[in-house]
């Protein structure tokens, strides 16, 4: 009789263990409906995140960049972006140049230090003028918001109507040009 009870105890414990693991992984997956890129700003340096235009001559790119800025600033994401025209060392250097052999509309580049923060606490936001002219105004807006999401430290997602969709440049099934709840939650979790 005692042996049967022991077997029952063992089975109950194993069942609890398995269910517990499933529950834990499941909660963890829900929490990662956004992804992180390899790096982020130092937590004390996002209020504000200064940005400055270098060599950006296109009015549509200036406007789209500012759209991205205001769309993040209008959310509950921590920190905010603020334009600087005089700062010698802004946290986002915005440029545009022609890279015909780079098959991307825009990108964020940076160096990531060993502690997981940007070296010099800055990133480069590059508009690829070879390709971006093929995009409409709203598409430029969403690409800008997307890149600033990368600056915050978000990575790509592959599904759902989220600004961090990897295919944001041509997406037709979603019309958003601003961060969506999952994007905002990602930034909140990042900082």
């Amino acid at each position, binding site marked *: 009789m005692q042996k049967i009870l022991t077997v029952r105890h063992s089975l109950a414990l194993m069942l609890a263990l398995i269910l517990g693991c499933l529950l834990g992984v499941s909660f963890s997956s829900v929490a990662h409906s956004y992804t992180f890129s390899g790096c982020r700003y130092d937590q004390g340096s996002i209020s504000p995140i200064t940005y400055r235009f270098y060599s950006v001559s296109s009015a549509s790119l200036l406007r789209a960049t500012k759209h991205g800025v205001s769309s993040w600033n209008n959310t509950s994401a921590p920190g905010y972006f603020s334009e600087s025209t005089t700062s010698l060392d802004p946290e986002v250097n915005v*440029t545009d140049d022609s890279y*015909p052999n*780079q098959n991307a*509309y825009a990108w964020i580049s940076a160096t990531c230090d060993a502690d*997981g923060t940007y070296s010099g606490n800055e990133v480069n936001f590059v508009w690829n003028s070879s390709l971006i002219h093929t995009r409409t105004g709203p598409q430029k807006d969403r690409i800008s918001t997307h*890149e600033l999401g990368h600056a915050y430290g978000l990575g790509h997602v592959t599904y759902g109507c989220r600004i961090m969709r990897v295919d944001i440049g041509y997406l037709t099934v979603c019309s958003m040009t601003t961060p969506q709840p999952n994007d905002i939650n990602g930034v909140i979790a990042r900082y």
Partner: protein
Amino acid sequence: MNRKLIGVISVFGLSAVIAGAVSWLGNGDSIESHPIVQVAPVIYSSFEDVQDQHDATLVVTVVSVDAEYVDYGRDGKADHADDPGLLMESLTVKVDDVLKGDKLLVGTELTVVQSQFGTMSEASDEEYLVPGNSYVIVASEYVSNPGTVEGKVWSMPLAGQGVFPIVDGEVHPTRADVFPETFDGGAVALDVLDKS
């Protein structure tokens, strides 16, 4: 009985916390110090689409990595003091076959450029051209930017859409979700892609 119940609940809760923590930590940042690039890549609707919008689909073997350089764009200049440009490398590849495009390219050697980090952050390791290995590449020819590589270079689209490693005679996508109507997440025979 209550003690047993408490025991089971405790194990349940503890294992949930541990599994969640392990899963969460598994998605954490790398501790390496390294350059990163995050892009908004051009995405094509199908393998036919990406081929139609590029100059050629080639079977190549990578001969060598020839140079590493910084691409500052069409003006060839840094835009600001901290501008890192794009860290690129040029490679020589030998064209073994042309699946689509100019057949005269067969047997020639071309200069191909790629980011030093593969096709940027979208890349898996397999997407990065490695000397000695063979690939199907979908690529276009461009005049290279000033201060980089002399003459014309070839480059491939990002996000797993232009580099397909050949292993044991089969062509593999570097991502399971790329062009599913062609690859269905797995390898295909080279003949399947040959539209020449």
